[in-house]
Structures are given as C-alpha cells and as structure tokens.
C-alpha cells in the first residue's frame, strides 16, 4: 500500500509516466468531434448521388476543405487512442499487445495522412 497522497502519485505520473495525458487527449478529441461529425453528416448527406464535379466543388472550397482535414486528423487520433485502450484491455500477452498498438498507431497515422493529403489535392489541385 502506498503512503503517498493521490495528488503526489499523479504528480509522479504513475507507472506509465504519462499521468492523465491519454485520458485528457481522448476527451479533447471527443469534444472536437461532436461539432465536426454533426457538420460533416449535415454536409455529406445532401451530397448523396452528387456528381464528381459537385463533390469537388464542395470539398475544394476553403471551409469544407479545412474542416474535413481537421475531421480526418482528429478522427484518427481519437481512433488510435480508443483502439489502444481496447487492445490494452483484451490482449494480455505483452509482445502481442505492443505489436498491435504499434500497428494501430502506424495505421492511423497512414490513413490520417492519406485522407488529409487527398483533401489537399482536391483543394489545391485547381
């Protein structure tokens, strides 16, 4: 049993040396995603069945372009944090857990970068 106060333990940042950082960033990304997802759904639902030119015109305009890049980046950051927790909960073997977390992290960065780049290509491609 530790004789340290909870505050002192938090200041020591616990065994992972990360403190509440993971938890906090998960909250930050979720707060950002609430308006972003609602905006995206409201924007994309009317684009069902739209032609390529219509969708490009929408995605290439400044506000949709910036918000969609923001959406993609925050979605994959949030996804990475969430999948990480699920893996930590259900994969007890350390090397398997670590391998999976590495794959999820790289996968999220790759997909996030690809999505953001696609938007930039459309927005700046002219």
């Amino acid at each position, binding site marked *: 049993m530790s004789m340290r106060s909870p505050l002192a333990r938090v200041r020591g940042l616990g065994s992972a040396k990360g403190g509440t950082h993971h938890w906090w960033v998960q909250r930050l990304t*979720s707060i950002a995603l609430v308006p972003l997802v609602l905006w995206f759904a409201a924007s994309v*639902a009317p684009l069902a069945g739209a032609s390529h030119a219509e969708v490009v015109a929408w995605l290439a305009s400044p506000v949709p372009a910036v918000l969609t890049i923001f959406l993609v980046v925050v979605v994959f950051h949030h996804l990475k944090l969430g999948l990480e927790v699920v893996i930590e909960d259900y994969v007890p073997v350390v090397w398997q857990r670590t391998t999976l977390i590495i794959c999820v992290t790289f996968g999220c960065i790759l997909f*996030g970068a690809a*999505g953001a780049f*696609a938007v930039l290509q459309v927005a700046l491609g002219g």
Partner: protein
Amino acid sequence: MALVDRPLSPHLQVYRFIFTMMLSGLHRITGVGLAVGAALLVYWLIAIAAGPEAYSTAQALFGSWLGRLVLFGVTLALFYHLCTGVRHLLWDTGWGYDVKTANATGVVAVVVAVGLTLITWIVAYAMRGGS
C-alpha cells in the same frame, strides 16, 4: 515477467444484464467498428482526389445494397457513439451518475442517435431524387 494469477473481477455472465451495461458495451463495440467508417471516409476522399472514374467506382460501391447497408450501419454506429460519448463527457463533469439519471440519459442517447440517423438518410434519399 511471469503472469501472476491475480483475482479477476466477475465477468459479463456473472452480472444480471442491465440497460446501462448494454449501452456501455455498445459504446466500445461501435467505437471499434467505426474504424471501418474511418477507413471508408479516407477511401471516399482518395476516390474524389483520384478523379471522376475512381469516384464513380466509389459511388457504385456505396450505392449497392451492401454498400448502403454498411453505410447505414456506420451512420447509426457514428451517431450512437457520438451520443453516448456526450454522455461520457457529462459524467466527466461529475453529473448524471445516479441510476435514474443514467437510465434516462441512456434512453435519450439512443433516441437521439436513431433520430439523427433517420434524418441523415431521409436527407440523403431526398437529394438523390429517386435515382
């Protein structure tokens, strides 16, 4: 490091199944499932960037019955995860932990999620002009 045989908390089958427990499990399941939705979002964006041909392939995939079914599932999972996520954010402020409120916000989250899903799909179908 040897695995120590520590006592574990009783697992799912030990507890009586209750509403808030199902919502909590679904929050996690939809969260994991939305990885598919996120990948589809990137595919859609890449298809737009790649040009009209790739875009029409994507449209055909998303427009097929299987594509629509998957997209509907993604929409429902997305709004469900969003609504129960807001519930989590409210809990983080220290509010809504008593059983009555937790049950009530659970019902609200499900109703709002289904409502937003239906609105999104009604708008999508209205815009397609029956095509």
